[in-house]
């Protein structure tokens, strides 16, 4: 599935942090004109997770977004914090992004427990070491940094993880909210939303 890719004209919307929805044909907010482009890919199935992370994050109660940010402006630098990202479901349930380290912890075995601990030390040591390396490479290394600063004409991609709340069956009709994008030149604080599916 190709990622929905959204560029907005320079219209400033009035929109609700806590209740923003996908509104068809509605303009979004830009640094200046069509400057900041945001593309999102939802990873919420076992197959996708196994392909990307070599492990089933969905079975551990997580889902992820592969986010690409492109700054098309020629003179504006903008900053986004991972902690300012959240997913809003169609029923206004807010799901904040979690640190990549939390996702990594979920994929690891219990300390002093779990398979092979003690009984077959060599097996556990090797398997655990291999597991750590695998998830450091696929989960931690691919994560979007805590702070993303995009210089003019710069682009960055990364994974952001979320915990699926109990009672939420799917986030396919949800929206990604960037609660605050800071224009480093003017100090202006802006907001954006992107649907997770078309």
């Amino acid at each position, binding site marked *: 599935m190709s990622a929905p890719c959204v560029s907005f004209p320079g219209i400033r*919307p*009035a*929109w*609700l*942090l*806590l*209740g*923003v*929805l996908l*509104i*068809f044909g*509605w303009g979004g907010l830009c640094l200046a004109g069509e400057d900041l482009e945001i593309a999102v890919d939802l990873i919420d199935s076992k197959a996708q997770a196994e392909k990307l992370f070599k492990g089933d994050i969905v079975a551990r109660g997580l889902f992820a977004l592969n986010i690409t940010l492109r700054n098309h402006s020629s003179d504006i630098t903008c900053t986004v914090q991972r902690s300012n990202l959240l997913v809003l*479901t*169609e*029923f*206004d*349930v807010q799901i904040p992004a979690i*640190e990549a*380290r*939390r996702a990594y*912890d979920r994929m*690891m*075995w*219990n*300390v*002093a*427990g779990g398979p092979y*601990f*003690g*009984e077959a*030390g*060599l097996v*556990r*040591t*090797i398997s*655990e*070491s291999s597991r750590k390396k695998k998830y450091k490479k696929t989960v931690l290394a691919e994560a979007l940094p805590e702070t993303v600063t995009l210089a003019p004409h710069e682009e960055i991609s990364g994974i952001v993880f979320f915990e699926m709340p109990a*009672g939420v069956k799917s986030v*396919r*009709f949800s929206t990604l909210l960037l*609660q*605050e994008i800071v224009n480093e030149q003017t100090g202006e*604080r802006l*907001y954006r939303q992107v649907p997770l599916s078309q």
Partner: protein
Amino acid sequence: MKGNKLKKISVLVLLAAWTVLAGASPAPEKNKKDQKKFTEYKSQHKKRGDVHGTSFDLPQAMVYEGIIQAFANLELTVNKEYRALGYLEGGHSRGISAERVITWVDPEGPRRWRVEVRNIRASRMGLIGALTTKDWSHELLAEIENVLADKPTLEQLQARVAEKPDSIDLRRQLAEMEVQFDMDDEAVAEYQALLQRHPDSLRDRLSCAELLLQHDRLAEAETLFAAAEMKDPATVLRLSRVCLQRENTDHALNLLNPLAESHPQDMRIRFELGRACFFSGDLERAKSLFGGIVTEAPQHAFAQYAGHWQKIIAAVESAGLDAPGTQRLIGEELHEEALNSLARKHLTAAWNGLPTGAEKYKSGCLVTEICVDQEAYDDIVAMVQPLVAELKKAKQGDMLLHLALAYCHQRDFVKARETAKAAKKAGCKDAKILESALKYYI
């Protein structure tokens, strides 16, 4: 030949032993001279044994986040946690040995929290394994202090705001801290002061609105938005949902009708309007709106939910709105649609009206689940405590778990643990983690 074979086997055994011990080698330690030391003492919770600790004048949520960050910085895994209790367990594994690290965040006074850490070395290869382990207590506590070092206390933030009254970040931090300390009135005042200086900050305007809505100050919340913004669909939909939760259906319809006229093809708006019509008693219009969504856009996100409401309308027409079965259907659907305050009302009616059985218990369980979300712990105790014996017999582990959580909030950990045990026996898997955490609170 035999000699060669023996040599090969010996080399393999040595290699295996080397691999095991190399993999189990202790993590590099900071220079011990620089390491801050914390005094070991016996915790007032006897089961915790000998611990190390330190205190913070910060909100519990902030301290807890600091612990999580410290774990991450030291590359310690987090395996189990119970945020509401302030309990976190994890550590470092080396294959044949490991260190389990348990931390607790307990109240020490008004706006003061104590962090206690216990390090447990685990080894399945006796002394050899044990020699490879270490004590993370000092390093972890030092790292927590390091992470939280630049977090100002409430008084410090207030002083900083007084020095820099125009700083949006400082005022926002102060308002957020006041919310974490349950000082909601002060937080609203802080947001209002912020908005006087930064009227364009929609994020803070909405945070303030959310706080006002939590305290039923709907009119004040609405005045935060200019007339132009009130025509924005997202804002209107959000407010209409809140009106519905507050059972102010007329106001919800006043908001939704013009919106539906200006956005006739928007399925979300039609769905919300259909639901508002249902609660205002206009079943015919509700049926028509839901039917339209199901027919015109069967793949749409809201088509499934519209179908549920059609079934609810059929139940109302056959059994009546006040029938316990109908109340259950309405409550369950509202819960699925995250309208929990309203859902609770209908589910409570179902719980009170239905005969003993699976449907009654399901309704009750959803009520207690919502009460946990809303932190209405006293309501859980009032509802569930008289029925503990019955719930144990009926194997309603989830309701018993919610009761255990309520006791935790009341800091009656003996009762909480007994109830968690009962919940575990009744088949609630989550109760096992709570029970194992609670043994350290006695």
